């Protein structure tokens, strides 16, 4: 971590970058927040540990409009989003100096009992340990690092950075599950079971829009659900199948653009597994139109803005 | 409306209205000269609901069910199926009075084509 701070300071001092986009210490070990640092002094509060899950690519949209370059620290999975945003002309590559940071898996504080944590030992970077020692208000406990990881780290797309100016730090492969297993499990359910599952999950939705606002693909200047152009009075929620329209359309709008960064599921206050929507589309796209990973190749044709004359017909695989 | 003509249409699945009277069925038929009612005329009999004449005709038993007419008909009318259905109607009318398999050998003569025999056996076994 000191290496990151050191490097950031020297880039700031040399004037190569005007600011640094990274993570800042919070009140506790886990409540790190994304932050811009303008001076070496401010960088004293820089932190990079197992709780730095936030995907900073999204903040680069705004940073691209500012004078000068921004040094941004990107984890391997964040670089997919960065690329995708470059592809869509939302980020100016020239305005970013990217340090690709290593990743050994990111943690979900909730899995450690976030509301009672006083301290966590072993979540640092690069020196994290296999077992986290958690001190809570109500006693101490040990949790395997693996067991506290975000869902997305278990199905990690790999620790290769897709875009960077330099790389710092080592990574550990954390992938130990099939990315599409959950989707396949739901696909195998009966329609009634599927409906019951999603109804229970979506009924929790409070339409706080955290999933949308954290999503690098959902970075429309004005979301159609906020705009009057579609007559979509989506501020009120419904009682039958709450917020389905919002979540289906949101997933549809990011289909072929979603890099599966998993931020939506990370931030949902109600713990709705929102990645199941996006991953369903990714699975279908891979199956029907060939493997496609958004954010890998800036020049690749996106699956929903291209076609083949012998594409599958709608409803293929039904009944 | 003659029930029998409806029955024939139903059994055969033939729509006589499709016929454009080109005669290709009769031109293709190997038993043409044996027949009193010619293949291209079958549809007219069904359309005119003159099923009686059709079921009484020699043609009924002269059709070899070779289905050349079915194959070659440009309009998909399939006169061979019509005659097949006419036989079926007759058989249903006769009910138990029909020939039994045992009675057949006595009625055979050398000129009866083998295919007709096979066709006949097929019907009688039902």
């Amino acid at each position, binding site marked *: 971590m000191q290496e990151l701070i050191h490097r950031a300071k020297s880039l700031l001092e040399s004037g190569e970058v005007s600011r640094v986009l990274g993570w800042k210490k919070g009140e506790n070990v886990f409540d790190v927040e994304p932050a811009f640092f303008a001076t070496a002094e401010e960088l004293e509060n820089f932190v990079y540990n197992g709780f730095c899950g936030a995907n900073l690519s999204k903040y680069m949209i705004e940073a691209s409009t500012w004078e000068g370059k921004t040094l941004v620290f990107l984890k391997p999975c964040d670089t997919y989003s960065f690329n995708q945003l470059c592809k*869509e002309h939302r980020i100016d590559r020239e305005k970013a100096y990217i340090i690709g940071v290593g990743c050994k898996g990111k943690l979900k504080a909730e899995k450690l009992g976030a509301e009672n944590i006083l301290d966590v030992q072993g979540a640092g970077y690069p020196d994290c340990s296999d077992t986290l020692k958690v001190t809570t208000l109500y006693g101490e406990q040990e949790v395997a690092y693996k067991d506290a990881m975000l869902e997305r780290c278990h199905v990690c797309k790999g620790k290769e950075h897709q875009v960077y100016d330099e790389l710092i730090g080592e990574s550990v492969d954390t992938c130990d599950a099939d990315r599409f297993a959950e989707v396949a499990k739901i696909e195998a359910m009966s329609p009634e079971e599927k409906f019951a599952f999603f109804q229970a999950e979506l009924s929790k939705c409070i339409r706080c829009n955290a999933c949308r606002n954290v999503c690098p693909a959902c970075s429309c*200047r004005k*979301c*159609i659900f906020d705009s009057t152009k579609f007559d979509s009075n989506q501020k009120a929620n419904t009682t039958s199948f709450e917020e389905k329209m919002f979540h289906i359309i949101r997933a549809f*709008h990011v289909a072929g653009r979603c890099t599966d960064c998993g931020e939506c599921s990370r931030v949902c206050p109600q713990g709705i597994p929102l990645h199941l929507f996006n991953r369903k589309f990714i699975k279908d796209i891979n199956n029907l139109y060939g493997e496609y990973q958004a954010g890998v190749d800036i020049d690749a044709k996106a699956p929903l*803005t291209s076609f083949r004359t012998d594409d599958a017909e709608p409803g293929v695989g039904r009944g | 409306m003659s029930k029998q003509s409806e029955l024939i249409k139903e059994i055969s699945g033939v729509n006589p209205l499709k016929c*454009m009277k*080109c005669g290709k069925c*009769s031109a293709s038929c190997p038993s043409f000269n044996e027949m009193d009612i010619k293949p291209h005329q079958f549809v007219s009999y069904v359309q005119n609901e003159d099923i009686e004449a059709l079921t009484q005709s020699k043609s009924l038993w002269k059709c070899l069910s070779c289905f050349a007419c079915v194959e070659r008909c440009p309009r998909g009318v399939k006169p061979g199926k019509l005659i097949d259905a006419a036989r079926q109607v007759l058989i249903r009318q006769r009910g138990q009075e029909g020939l039994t398999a045992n009675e057949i050998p006595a009625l055979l003569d050398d000129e009866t084509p083998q295919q007709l025999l096979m066709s006949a056996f097929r019907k009688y076994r039902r």
Partner: protein
Amino acid sequence: MQKIGVFVCHCGSNIAATVDVKKVVEMAAKEQGVFHAEDYPYMCSEAGQSRIAAAVKEKGLTGIVVCSCSPRMHEATFRKAAERAGINPYMVEIANIREHCSWIHKDMTEATEKAVILMRAAVAKVHLNAPLMAGESRVTKRALVIGGGIAGIQTAIDIADAGYKVDIVEKTPSIGGRMSQLDKTFPTLDCSACILTPKMVEAASHENITIHTWSEVEKVSGFVGNFTVDIRKKARYVNMDKCTGCGVCQEKCPSKKPLNEFNRGLNTRTAIYTPFAQAIPNVPVIDANSCIKLKTGKCGICEKFCQVGAIDYTQKDEIITEQYGAIVVATGFDTIKLDKYGEYAYNESKDVITSLELERIMNAAGPTKGHLERLSDGKAPKEIVFIQCVGSRCSDDRGKPYCSKICCMYTAKHAMLIRDKYPDTNVTVFYIDVRTPGKNFDEFYRRAVEDYGVHYIKGQVGKVMPQADGSLLVQGVDLLDNKQILKKADMVVLATAIEPNPDVRKIATMLTASIDTNNFLTEAHPKLRPVESPTAGVFLSGVCQGPKDIPETVAQAGAAAVKVIGLLAKDKLKTNPCTAKSDELLCNGCSQCANVCPYGAITYEEKLINDHGIRRTSRVAVVNGALCQGCGACTVTCPSGAMDLQGFSNRQILAEVDAICR
């Protein structure tokens, strides 16, 4: 807030017999924003249109809903009426209560309910309609004719005579098309070449006509008035400018195996060849697939003998790009393949031939130098049987469901010519019907029967059986005699069905012109616009639109030319205002819309945006209204809803959905 008038048409009894029009009027009057509702027997009539105008004036209407027949029928009529009445033509919406309602439903209550809902949907849409202004686009004063047969030649000459430049693209080495393969023409028995070659020469020498033979259309973009076309000029390996057409190269060419396409493969030609003597241009091409030099690098005989040094083995295909205001499709036809008709033994016997092959046999320049001979043994046939409707009027997948139209007449012609030239030859024609609607057509047919003794038998042939002695046994039926006929013949001629040139599908796709299930190009209207394609700026000439004979083809060619001339005579065209439009306040500049636009109508600009007082410079999409054709692909790709389609906006369609589902 719109003031809407609803006008319900009875269409005589077409609508009124099934839909309670009074009820529709009554319900319309209750709709929000509807200030006027009335019904009338024929809304499209002069009187009906006047009522609309009167209501607009009297009630100050701003929007109009006409409940009538399909908008495909009279939308334009009512838009014009609205314009005359002083409101924007795009403030009119049609509720289709005839084709989509009265004609398909029998129950009056049910049909009326549906008509009311369709009316409501149209009213809901009009509430959100906005006046649209047609833009203008320039017209390139040059036409392209695809296909150099008689249809293409005639169209080109007519357009050129009116003073406009025309290019003909022909994929074979020479213009002339099918007609150049014919011997004589019915019902006058003119020599085909004698009437065609002057036309070919006229086209070739016309100062306004450029002919690209041995060329194919590669790519078409743009729109009416402004097409951009890539033409592939295939390598000819002969320099057009140097060649004198002396023909020595063809005499000397050692590769003599390739089948002669012009003679329908009945004989062979050399690798370097001109398809026929009167070819235009009279410059040979080298068939790269059979040229020894091009295949193995050894030979070069033609080059050696060419006194002007016109042979150039290094030629490559060349793509030229041209601008056109209008495109005429004149791609013609071919005969169908007879592989599925085993009963006629076409593939078994050389003496079973198609009528087009007979044309070549009868032609003095053909494989038999014009002598009527059996191709198997060269003997003169004494018994000839013609079979009509081979593959025509056939509802299964072996043939075509339509009548090929020309066979009855050319068979009569063939029969007559044979009987005339070879009186000792018997000619029998098996027919289903003899169809002779045309000037002097039936007279012609009767002459064949009465004056030339052609034996017409009503009935079909079931089977043609080649015999060991080389003859053909024809089993047919005489339906009038009710007799089966077994006839020995020396030659059987099949009146084979014609089908559109197989290339037409590819061309139609490039032109975005629609084709029907038989691959014939579709007209904009089967009766009223028979020579126009539904795609603006694309016109139809000849058999590509449907079977026709030479006079009809020439007539249609002329008609297509007139339509082209009418188009090229304009300096500017009004463009469809129902185009996409980007809201720069919402646009993300992500380029997804541009990726799906088939017309390249979307570009991006860095623009200073004032968003309610907040200023920023942003990359935003800009739609070129002249290029946009209004498909709407971009609108769905746009996640922020910045891209919308005028005339079919998101809110308009949602309003229709709401009205139907309420």
